[in-house]
């Protein structure tokens, strides 16, 4: 066996550990780390596990509130939804694996977030996802997207958790770095939330689930006697998901939790056995001693280093009460799983790893968790910003007629129907899905109660790029407005912050300003953040993706029979536009589609006005006043009105007052401008005064703009008809745009 100099530049570089970090490790241990210990530090102190660049900023987010049962720091957050129940939810990214191997990368992302939820003692009941890809004109992007969608479906469909909603947007910046963010929500008893703690000296530590292999080991390729080139060859590049194993784990864990034999539970996600062991010990203020030779292994000759760093999927670590071990094991046996005792809870606060009784690593748990490095990375306003914020409509020339723009926007993949995608996801299993995908927020009822939850994930990366502070606020506003449209009172949020390389001051500036924006918006709208995920280094060829802080918001609907849907209902119903419109084309879908530009400043956002609008939406739904509601987003009020007609509705005839705009852009700005804090609602004929009065009381501008009926999407600006198409014609364009791109691909292939 060749001795390795763990302090050499080459070894440190392969582990992504800086010289300063190494010095900190040596001072914490009072000696040089072993190679295994260095590996353990390197994964726990990685950006992914330690949030070392982001933590100081994340701490500024509002995370408390009367409904919050569990804030950040556990496997997932939880909020009280009444009836003694809790909604347990979180969003997480799987961006990089989904680019390398789209199917398995996306599938294991779904598997990971589901484990985070059932680990808390909650039965997962809904999945959503937020996806970003490059242009669909690029065949590599189409292949990547097809794989990601199939992978998400392959895992969720098999395990039997419905995918009830989500969002997808397209921009060239994501070409070499797609974003795959997955949200999961589960329901548990409010007083039975399980935590990831190890405590009680002498309690048994069990390993259960798939065997450990060499897959997903942290990228340290060590040339040495104990870790040579051959071991690298044996290692698959990505982890492979096994939804059937996860289904067994889910059912068995939920069954074990019904007993009180369990102390704590954690899944082995990133950094595998290492992370679960030291985090459980640190949370419980205890030590954990394990022997890696007892860990079930899929391959022979694995070193302690490999076993500790493996990221094989579908594995759990649990601590059972002394004397209750047989009870726990019997439940796993029922599901043909074997819970193997690999260690014991100790009193010394150390993570002690042995191999056949010989200590190979011994590290204080808190050194790996609470005492991990924290960086205040320098940041400064990006050079692009001032220039990109300049937008002169006059320089764009004469705009195309509104009807042409309307058709192009309907066919734009970001706006078009995502049916080709969501029909590959089982969205009806568990029989709770009240609002199906593609119709705004997903809505699931909570069985045995009168309630339902509305769920939405949103972000417009263009807005964040053009002004991270305002753009991130707009993401919070859009996600919460979407759940409010369904009648849901926003009660909690989770975020997935996708950014480029934080070591670049301009990227760090985007990040810092976006977190400030999320904090400001969540405080103003009274929505606590209960957890989330940060994904940095999303770059290709040195260029970052559009900064994309995705917000997932949970809204509580007290009376499930009052859920409001997006579609217009009955001929003669009156259509109203809530909110104020202005000439706001900065960062719009129009500019992107018609001029290929991402320019200008994002729409202004008055958070007090937004909060008022959401109160109107929730109250109008609760009173049974609103027959439909849909927020205005990409493509403006014209696209919103059209989407309210798709499909099978009587159509709409609407006349929107013109907004003041330069250079002949009046129609464009009126119909396709993306002013914030707006929604289109409809009420039964004769009830419009009630709706206007409700809006007036909250100080929300509102006006009647039209009526349902006529079989057409007929839109006028100031009395002049500019778009007039049959519902079927318009819908065909919108519905077929994405599918057509994939069918073309199949023909070519």
């Amino acid at each position, binding site marked *: 066996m060749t001795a390795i100099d763990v302090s050499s530049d080459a070894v440190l570089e392969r582990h992504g550990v800086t010289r300063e970090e190494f010095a900190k490790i040596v001072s914490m241990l009072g000696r040089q780390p072993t190679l295994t210990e260095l590996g353990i530090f390197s994964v726990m102190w990685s950006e992914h596990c330690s949030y070392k660049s982001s933590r100081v900023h994340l701490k500024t987010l509002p995370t408390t509130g009367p409904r919050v049962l569990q804030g950040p720091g556990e496997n997932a957050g939880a909020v009280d939804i009444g009836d003694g129940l809790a909604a347990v939810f979180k969003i997480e990214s799987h961006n990089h694996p989904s680019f390398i191997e789209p199917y398995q990368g996306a599938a294991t992302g779904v598997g990971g977030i589901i484990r985070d939820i059932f680990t808390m003692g909650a039965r997962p009941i809904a999945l959503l996802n937020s996806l970003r890809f490059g242009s669909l004109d690029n065949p590599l992007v189409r292949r990547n997207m097809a794989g990601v969608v199939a992978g998400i479906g392959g895992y969720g469909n*098999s395990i039997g958790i419905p995918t009830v909603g989500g969002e997808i947007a397209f921009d060239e910046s994501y070409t070499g770095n797609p974003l795959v963010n997955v949200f999961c929500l589960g329901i548990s008893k409010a007083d039975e939330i399980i935590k990831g703690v190890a405590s009680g000296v002498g309690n048994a530590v069990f390993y259960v689930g798939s065997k450990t292999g060499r897959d997903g080991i942290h990228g340290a390729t060590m040339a040495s006697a104990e870790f040579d080139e051959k071991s690298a060859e044996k290692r698959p590049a990505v982890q492979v998901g096994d939804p059937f194993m996860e289904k067994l784990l889910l059912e068995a864990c939920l069954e074990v939790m019904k007993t009180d034999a369990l102390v704590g539970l954690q899944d082995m996600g990133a950094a595998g056995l290492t992370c679960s062991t030291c985090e459980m010990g640190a949370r419980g203020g205890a030590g954990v001693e394990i022997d890696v030779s007892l860990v079930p292994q899929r391959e022979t000759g694995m070193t302690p280093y490999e076993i500790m760093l493996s990221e094989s999927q579908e594995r759990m670590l649990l601590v059972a009460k002394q004397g209750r071990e047989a009870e726990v094991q019997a439940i796993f046996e029922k599901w043909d799983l074997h819970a193997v005792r690999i260690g014991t809870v100790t009193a010394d606060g150390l993570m002690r790893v042995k191999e056949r009784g010989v200590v190979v690593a011994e590290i204080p748990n808190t050194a790996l968790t609470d005492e991990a490095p924290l960086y205040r990375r320098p940041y400064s306003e990006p050079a692009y910003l001032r220039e990109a914020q300049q937008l002169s409509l006059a320089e764009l020339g004469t705009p195309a007629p509104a009807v042409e723009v309307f058709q192009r926007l309907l066919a734009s993949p970001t706006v078009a129907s995502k049916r080709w995608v969501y029909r590959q996801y089982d969205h*009806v299993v568990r029989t709770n899905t009240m609002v199906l995908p593609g119709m705004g927020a997903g809505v699931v009822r909570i069985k045995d109660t009168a309630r339902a939850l509305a769920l939405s994930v949103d972000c417009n990366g263009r807005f964040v790029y053009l002004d991270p502070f305002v753009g991130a606020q707009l993401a919070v506003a859009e996600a919460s407005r979407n759940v409010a449209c369904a009648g849901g009172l926003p009660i909690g949020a989770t975020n997935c912050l996708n950014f480029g390389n934080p070591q670049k001051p301009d990227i760090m500036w985007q990040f810092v300003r976006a977190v400030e924006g999320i904090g400001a918006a969540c405080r103003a709208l009274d929505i606590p953040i209960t957890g989330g995920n940060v994904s940095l280094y999303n770059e290709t060829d040195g260029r970052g993706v559009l900064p994309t802080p995705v917000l997932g918001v949970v809204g509580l609907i007290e009376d499930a029979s009052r859920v409001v849907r997006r579609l217009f209902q009955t001929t003669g119903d009156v259509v109203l536009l809530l909110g104020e419109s202005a000439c706001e084309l900065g960062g719009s879908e129009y500019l992107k589609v018609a001029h290929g530009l991402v320019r200008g400043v994002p729409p202004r956002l008055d958070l007090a006005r937004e909060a008022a609008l959401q109160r109107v939406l929730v109250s109008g739904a609760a009173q049974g006043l609103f027959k439909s509601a849909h927020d205005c987003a990409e493509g403006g009020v014209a696209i919103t009105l059209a989407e309210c007609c798709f499909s099978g509705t009587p159509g709409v005839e609407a006349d929107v007052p013109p907004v003041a705009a330069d250079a002949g852009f009046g129609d464009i700005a009126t119909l396709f401008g993306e002013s914030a804090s707006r929604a289109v609602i409809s009420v039964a004929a004769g009830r419009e005064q009630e709706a206007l009065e409700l809006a007036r009381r909250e100080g929300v501008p509102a006006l009647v703009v039209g009526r349902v009926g006529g079989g057409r999407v007929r839109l006028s600006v100031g009395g002049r008809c500019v778009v007039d198409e049959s519902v079927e014609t318009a819908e065909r364009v919108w519905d077929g745009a994405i599918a057509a791109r994939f069918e073309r691909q199949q023909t070519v292939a």
Partner: protein
Amino acid sequence: MKFAVVVFPGSNSDHDAHYAVEHPLGEQARFVWHKDTSLGDTDAVILPGGFAHGDYLRTGAIARFSPIMADVRRFADAGGPVLGICNGFQVLLEAGLLPGAMLRNDSLHFRCEFVSVRVEHADTPFTAACRPGQVLRMPIAHGEGNYYAEPEVLARLERNRQVLFRYVDAAGQVTRDSNPNGSVANVAGLCNEARNVVGLMPHPERACELAINGADGLVMLQSAVQWFTGRAPAAVAVRGASSLSA
């Protein structure tokens, strides 16, 4: 009436079937673990949807070896009503309780959406309360629902009136566009020669309430009750508002 819902380790619509029987239908449901050897005291059996044993090999291929299947066969042979839904249908095919086989969907994609199926015959325990020709709107959710039978087998099935459900358009017509998976002759479901064992790919148990966008499936469960007790079903399902689920 007592329904037994068989639970394979990878079943995922077991709760859906149990809930549909207990709540919208108002009868008794009980889970039966696949390792059990007896169905116990039951009047009907449901093999639910899911991925029984992961189905990495072939859907339902391993489930037929589960210990409970011997008693399911005994129950079926004695004339007891057995309903296989989605994966349950695939298990019935693999177990030889229904003829034919499943291929991958012709689109090669998993597909989940509401579809229309036409009830061809009303003389089975699960269609007794239907009108022949009645169109039911129910969701499908499967990757392998492309039913295939050899031409002579299919001819025999047609002759014996064993093709029980077909994919149709909203007007009840068999069309190519209304076939979501490439099934031969638009077959969505079958019964055995004795007519007590029924399998179908669409999910009636997921379409028993308007709150979840469709109640057309309830009539199939009500059929079982009517067939079993001889009494008329309470209320026939209200047609789901199609505008909510497109």
